[in-house]
Structures are given as structure tokens and as C-alpha cells.
């Protein structure tokens, strides 16, 4: 039984103009991700991995080509629609954790739900549940600067799950962590994938990390290659 395709990139180009110079971050990248898949993307620095992730995550639109998310072409959508998709269908995990320093762990997890207009009680319940999932319930009132890198990344994982997204996009989630902590964070992602069947796309430099995914794709100079 062939599973439904959840992400589809078809000959996607992304060109940045720096004055008169044009930088082609993506040159005709094509990729298909099936629902429930755990995909790792590897590639040298500057090969366009983050650019691709941002585009899948509706943070940016391609210069050329088509991106389909859940069967819907996103390359022509309006700002507020893109924001809606980011909020409801996508969960981001960044290398730099990207938590809001003024908010506590719990509040950080609640914030995406706030943007979706979810009532307070429900937000509190869900965020505490997610804190339990990443085993940080005892740290829920701590601010990011009172947490270790690994703990911060687990809060970020919990946050990415708050609106029960269809896809988790993790751009080098272990990049700022030592290997043991990185393994721990990865375990949570694997657990998520296994237990909830969430689709995960993860960018990494680390071959050992990548090998734990179901499939690895290689990106070089803005397009998918067989191997590096």
C-alpha cells in the first residue's frame, strides 16, 4: 500500500539577489516525503538545506517551481494563510532552540496555541502534558536561560508539538548539543515518530544521527544527489 505524499517539491529554485549578484540557494530541488516518514537531509554547508526547510515550512516562497504541502500548492499563498499553515500544520525545531527568553518553558509551549486562539485552560493542559512527554514537568516555570541546552531543545520539541502538527521540521536539532545530549533529544524525536506517527524532516551534519532516520537524502549545490 503506497502511503499518501505529504510534502512534494518539484523543481524548486530559490534565488537571493545580493545587489547585482544572484545567489542560487536551490537549483531545481525535487523531493517527495510520505506521510509518517522520518527523513534526514544531509549536505555540506551552504548547500541549501535550511533554505529548503524554510520553504517547506512556509516561511518563504520559492522563486520558481512548486511546493505542495498536504496536497496544497503553497507557493502562491498569502501571508496570513502561510502563517496559519505554520501555526497549525508545521512544528519547527531549530539548531539555536529559538525560545522566547522572556517567557517560561510552559509559556513558550503555550504561545503557538495562543496564536491559534485556543482558550487558556486548554493551553495550560496541553502544555503540561507536552512537558511531561519531554520529561521537563519540574522545569515548567523556568526561563530558557535557566535551562541547559538539551533541556531547551526538549522544550522546543514540546513547543513544536503544541498544535499537533502534521509535519515536524528540525533544522540541525542536535547541532548545538554534545553527542550524549544530542542522542537524548533524538530519542524524543524517534519516540514521537514511533508513537504518534508524526512526519519528521530533519537536517543534520552528523552521519550517526542521520542514520537513525528511515531514509537519508543528500543535498548538494541546491539539488538532491544520489550521494555525496
Amino acid at each position: 500500500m503506497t502511503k499518501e505524499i505529504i510534502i512534494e517539491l518539484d523543481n524548486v529554485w530559490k534565488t537571493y539577489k545580493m545587489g547585482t549578484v544572484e545567489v542560487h540557494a536551490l537549483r531545481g530541488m525535487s523531493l517527495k516525503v510520505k506521510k509518517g516518514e522520518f527523513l534526514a537531509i544531509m549536505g555540506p554547508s551552504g548547500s541549501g538545506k535550511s533554505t529548503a526547510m524554510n520553504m517547506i515550512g512556509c516561511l518563504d516562497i520559492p522563486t520558481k517551481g512548486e511546493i505542495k504541502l498536504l496536497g496544497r500548492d503553497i507557493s502562491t499563498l498569502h501571508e496570513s494563510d502561510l502563517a496559519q499553515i505554520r501555526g497549525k500544520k508545521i512544528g519547527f525545531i531549530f539548531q539555536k532552540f529559538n525560545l522566547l527568553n522572556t517567557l517560561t518553558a510552559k509559556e513558550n509551549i503555550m504561545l503557538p496555541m495562543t496564536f491559534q486562539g485556543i482558550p487558556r485552560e486548554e493551553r495550560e493542559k496541553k502544555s503540561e502534558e507536552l512537558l511531561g512527554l519531554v520529561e521537563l514537568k519540574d522545569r515548567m516555570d523556568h526561563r530558557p536561560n535557566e535551562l541547559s541546552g538539551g533541556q531547551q531543545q526538549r522544550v522546543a520539541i514540546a513547543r513544536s508539538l503544541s498544535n499537533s502538527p502534521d509535519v515536524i521540521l528540525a533544522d540541525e536539532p542536535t547541532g548545538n548539543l554534545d553527542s550524549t545530549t544530542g542522542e537524548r533529544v533524538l530519542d524524543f524525536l524517534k519516540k514521537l515518530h514511533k508513537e504518534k506517527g508524526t512526519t519528521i524532516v530533519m537536517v543534520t551534519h552528523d552521519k550517526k544521527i542521520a542514520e537513525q532516520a528511515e531514509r537519508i537524502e543528500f543535498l548538494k549545490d541546491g539539488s538532491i544527489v544520489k550521494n555525496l
Partner: protein
Amino acid sequence: MIKDYFKVAIKNIFNRKLRSWLTMIGIFIGIAAVVALISLGSGMQKAITSQFGKIGANRISISPGGAIAGPLSENLGSGILYSSDVEAVRNVKGVEFATGPIAAYVELEFNKEIEYVALMAFDDDTKTLRYMEEMGLAEVEYGRQIKTGATREVILGNRIANDLFDKPIQVGNSIYVDNYKFNVVGIQKKSDSSMFDTVIRISKKTAEDLFERENPSNIFAKVDDNYEPTEVLGKLEKALRKEHNVDEGEEDFTIEIAADVIESFTRILTTVQILVISIAAISIVVGAVGITNTMYTAVLERTGEIGIMKAIGARNSDILTIFLIESGMLGLVGGLIGIFIGVGIGKAVEVIAKAAMNSNILQAHFPWYLILGSLLFSFLLGAIAGTMPAKQASKMNPIDALRYE
């Protein structure tokens, strides 16, 4: 949801550095000035009209000399008013009524104690009495007014009766005025102006007979309602010039009309108000620019946060709302501090005025609409001042914002 945005905004405000607060001094000053001004302004207006309103717009006061003199000042200036002047004033067409009280300093003896006080003597007919009462110069609290034709009756100013001598003087007591025995028949009500609380009052006839005084210290006149006060004023001037045999511009008397005094005071008040409002307006503009400035800084400092919020689903309108609320709250806090300062200034002026004038006619009022209006105004001001930075924040490209270091 707006409630949650308020929470985020308040968090951000508490995380601000001191320096960003300093740029808001303009708001403090502006709002403080407005609150103090408005709270005192109505009090001041009231004080002026209550002081001068008693005299009434159709009342004329003539004093000797070229300078302004009160009803109790002695004839230090070059001019003297004569009792014949009162007659002359009465004869002017349009003058309904005129009276010329006599004023003097006298020795007052009570219970073997001697004090020197001002004496005022005016006609004891009911018309004069009513006129003086209307001016607030002859209201009796205890006892009664001097009977028409009575010779040795005296009425005491409130402070003379209560404070001047070791023992308070009461109605029915006897006192000596320049060694003549008088019977105290009444004690005046405490007046708005302490000057009239230290005066004793006898009938004009008695003053003329006993103290051989006849020249009035002032002449008070009332214009008939059917005549234009300023026209009558002109005729009066002419009549008195003739009486005193002086040319125009060389008058040894001053004629004042209450309407003029009220007007000039109101003009001064308006000038002060315009001045304070201008200062307030400038301060508020400076404060608003300060808010705009710190909000631009905040947007720059929080570029990364804006990117994060967008990545987790914030729409442009959400970011706009958050930043507008934050700048509105900044304005609100500025306004709140300004209100505290303004109320402080208002109260301080009230206390100082009370001490200086020995009366509490100048009251600072803080009506709820002033406080609420100031708060609302400062919030809106902050929000407006933050509009441009908030727009900039909301339009930020999420990727650029996330990459910003």
C-alpha cells in the same frame, strides 16, 4: 487573545532597560502639567468669580489717587475723596445707588487690653447694608446689624472677636473705640479674605460725629440695570473731574468696574493656561517621539523574537497588535506616573494657597473623567507613537528576522 497579548506586552515592558524609560520623561511632564492645570484651573476660575463675582459686573468702585486702592487703605496717594463726591456720583444719570464708607485706624480696648485695628463706617440705611452684604463685607454671624440711627453700636470682624484679645469678645460685651464706649451688637461671618475679619464696623453718622471724619475712603456705586455700565463709567469720570477740577489724564482718583477686574484676571488665567498647555503639548510630543524611538529600538532588539513568533504561527496582524499594545502600555505607564505627579502638584498648590491666603477657596479637583481621560489619552498616544515601529515589526520577513543576529 488580546488579554494574552497584554500579558506578553507587560512582560516585555518589565524587561526593559532603565534608559528606555528615561525617554518617556516628556510624557510624565506633559500629563502632569495637564492634570495639575485642569485640576487647579476650575478651582482658580471658581475662586476668581467667587471673589469678584460678589461685586457684580454692574458695580463701580472709586478710590482716591491714581493707584488701585482697597476699601481700607488710607489716603497715601495724592488724591482724596470728599463727601461731596458721593453726592456728585449719586447725581450722575444711570447711577442707581452710591455710598462712601469712612475708613480709619482706631484704638480698641477690651478687658484692659489695647489693640489697633481698622474701622469701617458706612451708612446705616438698609439699602447700603444690603449692598455691603452682597459684596460679602457685612454678613453677621452672631447678633444683628447696626440699627438705623443707633449711635454706639459696633460690629466686630470674626478674628477681632475670637483671636485678637486673650478673652473672646461676645455679643453684648462693651468695648472702647478711641475711648468711646460701644456696645457689641454683632460679630461678622468669617469671610473669604482675611482682611475683612480684622475690621470693626460702626455707622457712618457715628464716625462723623465722634471721630470728626467725613471724607470717604472709597465710593461704591451701582449702575441701574437699564444703563450700560461702561457708559455710566464715562459720565462718572467726567463728573468727578469737574468736581476735582482736574483735566483728563490727570485724575487723582481711580474708577474701577468689576467687569474689568474679572476680565483682566480671566485674561491672566487664560495666558497662564495657554502657556502651561503649550509646555504640556511640547513635552507630550517629545515623549511620543521618545516612545517611537524606544519602540524602534525594541523592534530591532527583538528581531529574532519576531522571527520565532512568525515561525510558530503569528500573523503580521498578531505582531502588530503585540507591539501596539506594548507601546500603548508604555504611554499608559508614563501617563500614570504623570497623573501621580500632577495630583501632587495640584494638592501642593492647594496647600500653599491655603497657607498664603488663609482661606481654602482654591481647591484642586480631580474628577474621574480627568484621570480616566488622561489614562486613555496616554495609552492612545503610546499606541500612535508606536504605530510605525509596530508596522515595521509586523512586515518583517520571518527568515531575515530568524537569521538576524
